[in-house]
């Protein structure tokens, strides 16, 4: 059993409000504390202010794009330690793209849209190193 301490905070950055609502609901139902942003700039601001435990980042967003946000996150010493999960519909192309770029380390996890709730949670749990929740 996990000890009752302050819940882990997950920052959701996605320009589709429905996806944000979906992820927010899933995380809240599973004992996490979601933080939400619907564009990259707001997401970065929130990340710097709140230093979340994990970030779920969409790639296909208008300026700044998810790739730009990811680069910013990795370039900021205060934020570079936070695991990032990429949530995207263009997964394969993105993996190829980011794999060719040496100056940026690859993200810690990928989730392809559309996703199963269990699949998402297992990636999040692995990255937060928390045992399976018994709900």
């Amino acid at each position, binding site marked *: 059993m996990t000890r009752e301490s302050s819940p882990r905070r997950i920052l959701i950055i996605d320009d589709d409000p429905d*996806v944000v*609502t*979906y992820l927010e*609901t899933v995380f809240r139902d599973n004992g996490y504390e979601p933080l939400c942003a619907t564009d990259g700039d707001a997401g970065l601001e929130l990340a710097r202010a709140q230093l979340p435990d994990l970030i779920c980042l969409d790639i296909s967003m208008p300026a700044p794009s998810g790739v730009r946000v990811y680069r910013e996150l990795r370039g900021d010493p205060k934020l570079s330690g936070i695991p990032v999960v990429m949530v995207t*519909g263009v997964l394969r192309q993105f993996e190829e793209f980011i794999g060719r770029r040496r100056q940026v380390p690859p993200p810690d996890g990928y989730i392809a849209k*559309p996703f199963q709730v269990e699949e998402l949670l297992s990636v999040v749990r692995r990255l937060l190193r928390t045992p399976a929740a018994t709900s």
Partner: protein
Amino acid sequence: MTAVAWHPEWRAELVDQFLAGVMVLDRSLAIADHNRAFTEMFGEARGNKCYKVLKGRSEPCGICAAMSTFNDGRRRVLEQVGQDREGRPVNYLVQVGPLRDPAGDIAFTAVITTDLTATKRLQREYQALFEKVPCYVAVLNRDFRVVKANEQFRRTFGEPTGEHCHEMFKKSPERCAGCLVEQTFRDGEPHTAPHTGIACDGETTHYLAFTTPLLNESGEVRHVIHMSLDVTEVRALADELGRANEIRRALVESSLDAIAVTDEHRRVVMLNRAAEQLWGVSRDDLVGRTVPRWMLPAELAPVLKNEAEQELVHDARVSTASGVQVPARIGAVSLSVENRFSGAAVFAQDLRELKKLEREKLEAERLAAVGQTVAGLAHGIKNILTGLEGGMYVTSSGLKRGDQGRIRQGWEMLERNMSRVSDLAKNLLAFSRGDHPEPELVRPADIVHDVVTLFRDGAAQHGIELEGVVDDSVEPAWMDPEAIHSCLANLVSNAIDACLVSQDPGCRVELHLREADAAIIFEVVDSGCGMDYEVKQKAFTSFFTTKGKGGTGLGLLLTRKIVQEHGGSITLESTPGQGSTFRLRFPRARLPEPQGKESTS
């Protein structure tokens, strides 16, 4: 008239009439008398010694013909060189004969001198001519031996020392077949033929030989003059020309371009194989005839009539003999020989294969656009599916917990994403409408005016000025007017949106039309918000939108598809905060072929 008897004393008068000089010498070689002609040659000389007068000597000559005749009484004829009254050298023929007294003793000798100077000069001139004439000249006897040869002959074939002519000319022991010399000896007539010999340095020498008889006093052919003109260099030039001609013939004949040549009267002189194939004619039917009117586009006529230097038509349609229209690039250039018009050369490139390749390329581009669209569609569908799944999760978890707020929230998500599915379906219909554009001959300016009219009022309501900047000289073109209209409408609508989000008041949108380098160019220029690098990169990718859920992300994709189907290209220039320019460029040569006008290829 009564006959007058001859008086012997008139002999002195007779002797004065002679053209030859006559003098009478006594035994002391003093001149006893001479006639008038003698005076003209040597001056008045009576009483002077002959050797003094004729040769300017003070002593008698070593061998004296007059003295010999005094001694033996015989007549003599010999050539002498002396000097005339002016001291100039003079050649003369001397005849010496005895004059006997009544006792029969030789009291005097008569010496007749005939001036040979003119004859000698002529001889020298002939000799010089013989030696210096730039031909090989040889005199041959009946044994075919060279008895005399001129300088050029000796220089080329060597000094004759009694050799046969064939030994000298050809270094051959055998007499030549069809020997000209033999023929001239036989019939006394001149003959001529080209021959090839070998000079003494071993070089092959080509010459044109003439033979002519040399008759003796009795009219017999005792010798033949063999003259020959060296044509080795002419032959070399002719060979060179022959080779150049052969190369030219092979090049023209095997050229992939059709080539036809006409003379100054527009008659066909030559036609190569590619020309036979392009026009579907046989050169035997056409060569020598005036170029048929159907063969060439009207633009080339001035060149064939010497009214223009050259002409080139890049996008011509050439008629074949059977009336089929073939796309071709065709040109003509006027030909002149020594500044005089001598006809024209026409060259044409059959573009059927090229056009076919171009169509295939366009088709490949179109398929690539479809492929990108399909990939984009999959992505868009994934997003909507995620939204739908999210809606279902939120609704069902709300139901589980009896949380009405959550149920409503989930239901709204479901509704929103269902409407996205319906928008997508509508756009897909537009996307799949017609596999190919349906071109009509339209004025591009009309499309621009329609689009400007459609959006002007709506834009003005937001304080945005919309203006068409149209070059009215742009000629009609084959385009799908509806498709082009929706492209421009989409771009103008985007530009107005860009102005709406711009910080600057008084934004402008301009729709330009012009033509450059045989391409029709539309430009949609706005002074709106502009785009940064990332947005520019993604502008044409499927389902990318900067309008949140207000855009489908299909507009530019659809625009690009239509542009590509018209063989055109779309480019984008944009600076954040300053505005964007979308440029649609349609090269006329790549516009869709009007239906039913294509050639059967």
